[in-house]
């Protein structure tokens, strides 16, 4: 699948006088589990709402699944969206939720949904509102996956879940992504979970895209350098994303590859995704954009100390 599942150019959304999202240009290729990361209020929900057509852009445009206008019938046919707090009709039974979702869509894999719910131990005759938070999230995800979407959008799907439910939810999502080739875009501010599931990262900060790219590329182009604190200034001219100083030792996350020379007295190692995300989140001015549609050579790298 050689297309972009979400593509935004100059996308902006203004509520009253404040921009929830601005100048957002990105292209997420198909076949990834993409994580949309950022602090609260960074514009994650706004971006997802724009991508599913629940919100209209104030500026720019967004398309999904290779150029379909967000919110159009063709777009809604191919994507499934699980909104924040997994909204369900609380007074409908699980069976009724299946019926409603089946009738609102062209495709619905009833056997898949029933098998999945049986596996999860969710009774069909229980009212959706009586299910536990984890079960509600699982039901919402099952309904979304039974639509056989090509793109699954999840807004903070695990924020309200306990660790076990969180693990189960991610497992179900990953199975769909791997076995059925569903592209996933999920927003989260829980970084630890993402390491395991995401292979594409979009970092949003204050309504702007700060980092976008494949996790492997990002990890390959960043190093954590450890060395004497007194020598930090030697990196004055280098693209340092974030510098953490202790008494004697300093940790720097720098934009560098494994081939770049390491100064004497310093050690270099690969960064973890969490380290990388945290470093950028602490430096909202820094940026690393690796998405397709951008030329690596001319990429903008704002460097901050």
């Amino acid at each position, binding site marked *: 699948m050689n297309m972009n599942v979400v*593509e935004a150019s100059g996308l902006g959304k203004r509520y009253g006088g404040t921009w929830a999202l601005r100048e957002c240009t990105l292209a997420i290729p198909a076949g990834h589990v993409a994580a949309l990361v950022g602090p609260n209020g960074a514009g994650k929900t706004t971006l997802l709402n724009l991508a599913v*057509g629940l919100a209209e852009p104030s500026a720019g445009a967004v398309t999904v699944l290779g150029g379909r206008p967000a919110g159009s019938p063709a777009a*809604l046919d191919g994507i499934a*969206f699980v909104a924040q707090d997994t*909204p*369900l009709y609380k007074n409908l039974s699980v069976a009724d939720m299946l019926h409603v979702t089946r*009738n609102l869509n062209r495709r619905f894999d009833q056997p898949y949904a029933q098998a999945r719910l049986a596996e999860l131990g969710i009774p069909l005759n229980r009212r959706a509102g009586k299910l536990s938070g984890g079960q509600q999230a699982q039901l*919402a995800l099952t309904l979304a996956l039974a639509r056989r979407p090509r793109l699954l959008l999840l807004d903070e799907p695990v924020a309200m879940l306990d660790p076990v439910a969180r693990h189960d939810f991610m497992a179900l999502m990953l199975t769909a992504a791997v076995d059925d080739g569903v592209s996933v875009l999920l927003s989260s501010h829980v970084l630890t979970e993402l390491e395991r599931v995401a292979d594409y990262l979009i970092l949003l900060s204050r309504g702007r895209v700060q980092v976008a790219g494949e996790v492997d590329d990002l990890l390959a182009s960043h190093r954590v350098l450890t060395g004497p604190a007194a020598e930090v200034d030697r990196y004055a001219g280098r693209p340092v994303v974030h510098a953490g100083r202790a008494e004697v030792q300093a940790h720097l996350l720098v934009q560098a590859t494994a081939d770049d020379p390491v100064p004497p007295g310093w050690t270099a190692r690969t960064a973890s995704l969490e380290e990388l995300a945290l470093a950028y989140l602490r430096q909202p001015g820094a940026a690393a954009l690796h998405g397709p549609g951008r030329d690596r050579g001319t990429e903008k790298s704002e460097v901050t100390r």
Partner: protein
Amino acid sequence: MTALTVPARPEEDDTRLRPVPWRRMAGVTWRQHRYALLGVVTLLGAVAVYLWIAGLQLHRAYAAAIACHPARSPACQDLVNTFNGMGTFLANGSILQALPALIGAFVGAPVLARELETGTYRYAWTQGFGRWRWTLGKLVPLAVAVTAATAAFGALLSWYYQPYLATPGHQALGLSQTSAFNGGLFDLREVAFPAWTLAAFAIGALAGMLIRRVVPAIVATLAVYAGLAVTAGLFLREHYLTPLLTTNLTVPGSAWILSQWWTKGGTTLSQSTIQQVMDPVMQRLLPAVPPDQVHLYKLPTILNAEQYLTQHGYTYWTRYQPGSRFWPFQWIEGGWLLALSALLIAATIWLVRRRAT
């Protein structure tokens, strides 16, 4: 975007993308609104059973009263009094006026307000059905359902009120009679009753979309409905067709009398002027009867006084809508309410379509 962007090329099955069929909304709407619809049926059913039982008694009492001979006998007056004393709290229809408002508010207002209040619109509007089609697919069947249920109920109401509607020749018996145009009853008839319910439903749907909360939307619907119903009854209805003018002293009881006044020599006389002229005439014509029986002679006596005045250069004008215009008026009211409802539902769908969160 630059060169790496893959051009839009929807797959073959998507170019011939057929929308999800409309009929699939039926089961969805039923599952989500069955309790509201069952509530309407229960409410109307309970009132209908009561009206059926009370109506049978009312019709029986009416038949007995008009069949009684001789009409002025005490036994017959007892039958008239029995009829007049029945179901007095329903007689002017004002209580039942609340039904269309309640049905419209409790079925119409939550349709969108509940989705927006609980956040489920984020589920409903991102399904393959499409959000404006979803809205239309919900509002139209619900509107048809409440209209059909209240149309059947309106037929029952019309039957119930039949004995009160002026029948020529029965006026003199002293039976409670009213014009079919009576503000309280006109709204309860075959066409107007379902039309008002439909309007209340449409007001509710739009209020729910605008206010986005169930309870405030219900309150707003009741307020707007009451304002519209009062405006229509007091100011609009009499202008549906140009009223007729007559100088005839006896206007049929089925007519809706809008205003009456005296003139002499082309000038309209004020109420106090005509009272000064009328009083001495009345004094002269009024037979010496005990005060508690005056009402029995009131109508003929007043008529005599009016006849006396008309023979002496005075003219009595009546502006009225004849009883024969009842059905045209029902259809005119039903027509503009239907148009208004269609407009409100269209506005609701338009708002859903362009709504930006």
